[in-house]
């Protein structure tokens, strides 16, 4: 049963991601990426991580993708030019080959990691799925990283405003 659910969500995520990079219309790409994120949220539920799943939906599908949609609509640039004249006829093949090789390497490496480093027993569900536990660890062990993250968000907010703001005109 779990395996069937896994294959449904994993297939959905992979197909939607392939659609994202195979799509010429940027708007459709953003929509397909939201589908992919939803499927990954389903996988997080399957991994007994409901907090991460909800965060995935709210932050990724809700906030970041809306930001992307805003920019796509704002710039009104829905389609892109052909790749071939700029890079030559073999660019597609070469890029696909390179990324396929990288994927093979990553899968092989992770496979060995999964076989050796972790005991494949599932552990207790209550210890990983409770939000209380996550909050406790987040605000004790990772408290410094949490604070640094807030500074990062502040800096990126100011940076985005400065970069995208109206350029200053010299008199």
């Amino acid at each position, binding site marked *: 049963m779990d395996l069937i659910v896994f294959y449904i969500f994993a297939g959905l995520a992979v197909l939607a991601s392939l659609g*994202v990079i195979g799509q010429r219309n940027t708007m459709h790409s953003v929509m397909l990426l939201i589908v992919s994120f939803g499927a990954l949220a389903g996988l997080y539920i399957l991994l007994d991580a409901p907090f*991460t799943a909800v965060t995935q939906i709210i932050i990724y599908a809700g906030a970041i993708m809306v930001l992307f949609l805003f920019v*796509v609509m704002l710039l009104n640039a829905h389609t892109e030019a052909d790749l071939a004249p700029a890079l030559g006829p073999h660019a*597609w093949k070469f890029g696909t080959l390179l990324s396929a090789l990288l994927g093979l390497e990553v899968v092989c490496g992770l496979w060995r990691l999964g076989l050796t480093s972790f005991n494949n027993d599932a552990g207790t569900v209550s210890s990983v799925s409770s939000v209380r536990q996550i909050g406790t660890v987040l605000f004790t062990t*990772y408290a410094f990283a949490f604070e640094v993250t807030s500074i990062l968000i502040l800096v990126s907010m100011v940076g985005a405003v400065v970069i995208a703001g109206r350029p200053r005109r010299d008199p």
Partner: protein
Amino acid sequence: MVSLNHFLVLSGILFSIGTAGVFLRRNLITILLSIEIMLNAVNVTFVAAGRYSGTVDGQIITFFVMTVAAAEAAVGLALVIALFRHRETLSPEAFTSLKW
């Protein structure tokens, strides 16, 4: 229970799809979307590894990755807007002034 290797293989496939997007697409926004795919692939690895080692650390690192992704998307899209304002295009071929 699904084994850890299933999730790791899925994550590797998603990561290579993201790199393929960065290699193949000629649109700054789609390149940023591909980077988001890669970040999500890494998130899957973290959550799965945390689940199978019985700690919440994987989920917490995923939380931080999401925060960094949000900051990256904000700054990246601001850069895209600034670049579009200069050249009226989103193709990376147009922004090669610093290319050697």
